[in-house]
């Protein structure tokens, strides 16, 4: 053992004053005594902990060593002159201490146990997330099914009012009649009946919406740029498909819940702006495919040729680069190119969607021929 005692100061965790101490290596514990040699504390080697990790190789002259006893005790022992300027590491007091309390030099905090724990926690977290991912849609659909039809209808009307605030309603009588006839033909085959209300808004974008409760909006840009009445019929049938499957209500509940779950699990800092009701009308890809399939059924039942929707998407994909307003439809109805393939089974068998007179009237529904 070294002749000179190891000095430093002791903070007893009860008061803030420093006690000058000398430290001696006992048989099973560090013996801490004050300047007069009176014992202050005895710290077993097995319980020693360094508040900052020490690496014997990187220890520098003049560095101090801060020790604690266990995890909870606030007392601290600060040893100075861990290594004198010229002293070799071998045989020093530090190496002696590290032999008696090897845990002080333990290499890394990330022990095998920690790796296993974090691994398990990560797997558990992933499992919970996956379970929610698969379980949430059916749960959301059940919840949506509990909403009374009258609420759904009222909600849809409110949403349409919000959207209508952005443009004037087109209601030339002849065009409106033509459109209503088309809508009636498309919904005729449905049991139980699903009444829809179709409104045309005077806006240049190519887009259509199906709000809850069968409230369908067509933007006039879609009608004006359509190549045929069958294209409009295809889009309308698609939106009716959304209505029949109650996609509006279902995706509202789904999206609301999914957003909440994501933010809660990720500790997201955007909880403060949980999306309000209005942004909930973007449909998922499977809803789009469902609506497409429904559209083909409805058109066939109404004896209208079923390739209109496919034509519409084909034209949209072609014009995507030229017409900026096309983006509006693509952003709410993604992957147009893929869906063109999905609806390719539409066939030219069947009759026209409406008479040439009705089609002309529909195209003039906004009154502005110029």
């Amino acid at each position, binding site marked *: 053992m070294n002749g000179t005692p190891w000095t430093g*100061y002791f*903070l*007893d*965790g*009860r*008061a*803030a*004053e*420093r*006690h*000058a101490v000398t430290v001696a290596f006992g048989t099973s514990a560090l013996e801490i005594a004050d300047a007069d040699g009176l014992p202050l504390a005895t710290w077993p080697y097995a319980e020693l902990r360094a*508040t*900052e990790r020490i690496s014997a190789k990187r220890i520098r002259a003049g560095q101090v060593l*801060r020790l604690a006893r266990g995890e909870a005790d*606030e*007392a*601290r022992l600060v040893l100075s002159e861990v290594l004198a300027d010229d002293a070799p590491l071998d045989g020093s007091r530090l190496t002696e201490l590290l032999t008696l309390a090897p845990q002080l030099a333990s290499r890394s905090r990330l022990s095998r146990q920690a790796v296993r724990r*974090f691994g398990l*926690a*990560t797997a558990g*977290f*992933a499992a919970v*997330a996956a379970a929610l991912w698969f379980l949430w849609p059916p749960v959301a659909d059940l919840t949506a099914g509990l909403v009374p039809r009258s*609420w759904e209808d*009222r*909600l849809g009307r*409110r949403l349409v009012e919000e959207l209508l605030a952005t443009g004037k309603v087109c209601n030339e009588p002849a065009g409106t009649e033509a459109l209503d006839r088309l809508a009636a033909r498309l919904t005729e085959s449905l049991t139980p009946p699903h009444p829809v209300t179709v409104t045309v808004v005077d806006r240049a974008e190519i887009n259509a919406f199906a709000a809850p409760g069968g409230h369908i909006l067509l933007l006039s840009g879609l009608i004006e740029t359509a190549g045929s009445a069958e294209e409009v019929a295809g889009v309308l049938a698609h939106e009716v498909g959304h209505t029949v499957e109650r996609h509006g209500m279902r995706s509202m509940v789904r999206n*609301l819940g999914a957003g*909440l779950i994501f933010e*809660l*699990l*990720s*500790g*997201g*800092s955007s*909880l*403060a702006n*949980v999306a*309000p*009701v209005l942004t909930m009308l973007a449909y998922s890809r499977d809803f789009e495919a469902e609506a497409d399939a429904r559209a083909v059924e409805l058109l066939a039942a109404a004896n209208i040729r079923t390739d209109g929707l496919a034509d519409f998407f084909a034209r949209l994909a072609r014009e995507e680069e030229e017409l900026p307003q096309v983006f509006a439809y693509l952003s709410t109805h993604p992957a147009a190119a893929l869906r063109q393939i999905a609806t390719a089974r539409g066939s030219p068998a069947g009759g026209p969607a409406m008479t040439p007179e009705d089609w002309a009237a529909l195209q003039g529904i906004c009154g502005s021929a110029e």
Partner: protein
Amino acid sequence: MTDATFSAAMTPPLGADHIAAKAPGPKEPGRRVRYDGRSLDLFWIYLKNLVLTFVTLGIYRFWATTRIRRFIWSHLRFLDEPFEYVGTGKELFLGFLKAMLALIPIFIGLGVLDFLFFQFLPEFYWASELLRFTIIMSLIYLGTYAAQRYRMSRTLWRGIRFQQAGSAWVYLGLAMRGLLLTVLTLGLYTPFVNVRLKSYEMNNLSFGSQPFAFDGQGKDLFKPFLIAWALALPTLFLSMFWFAARSYRYYASRLSVAGLRFAMPVTGLQVAWLQISNLLLLVVSLGLLYPVVVRRTLDFWCQNLAVEGAVDFKKISQAEQGPKTGEGLASYFGMDAVGV
């Protein structure tokens, strides 16, 4: 105060410490508070944290925060004694889980309410939005105070804990009242609410058995605020940096603990430069220069903090135990100021 007494105070004696008043220059070896962490060391911790947080799908982030705090605290020294952070990642994680359980019903309730208002009382939809805003603001204030309480209870200096007493609900009450009055007075109430909140926070803070005392009054900052407010538009809001610096100087001068008094002689230009340059560093480096930003920030505040007075450390005894789990709400809303 002569340099002789100043240097005598440099190595604190073991009993009472007398500290000379002097705003130390940047290279002053006897700076009262100093940060001596190497940016490179912090950078490795930061990098390791990023990787581990990524592979654990974010779960590691509580332990990551803890590691960063341990590093920074242990390299921050006052009177040649480092601070020590004794919080754990587990505590932060449990706090987060608790907050999550509390938030689920609140947000489901808000969602349903939003829906009902939209459905049945569309003309009062604004009330639903106001309620949502109020609840979220309240959660932010509650979370801030609770986080402060946790952080203080896990901060050790000379083996003694800090303690943030007081009630988060009272704090919330003061904050919401202040927010309302600020809105009603077009912002003119700002200095009053700022000082009121600072006062509540500081007068409930203690180091062990020694309470901090803060005797600031909002009216003292009213004139500077009026000037900064009037000049806000012509100076593109840069006058607010000047007001911020003025506030820091004022807060420091009104604070005392255990016979110590403080001064923080910073100027608006310095504060503006620090914050703008830090922001630029973070943006340009995509966050990788975070350790440098920490170093610059802490260096700046340490260099500018002057402390004066005498402390009898024998009379400072241990504080009561703090909360068992940490932060919770504050893990949401991203309210960590320096990111630590």
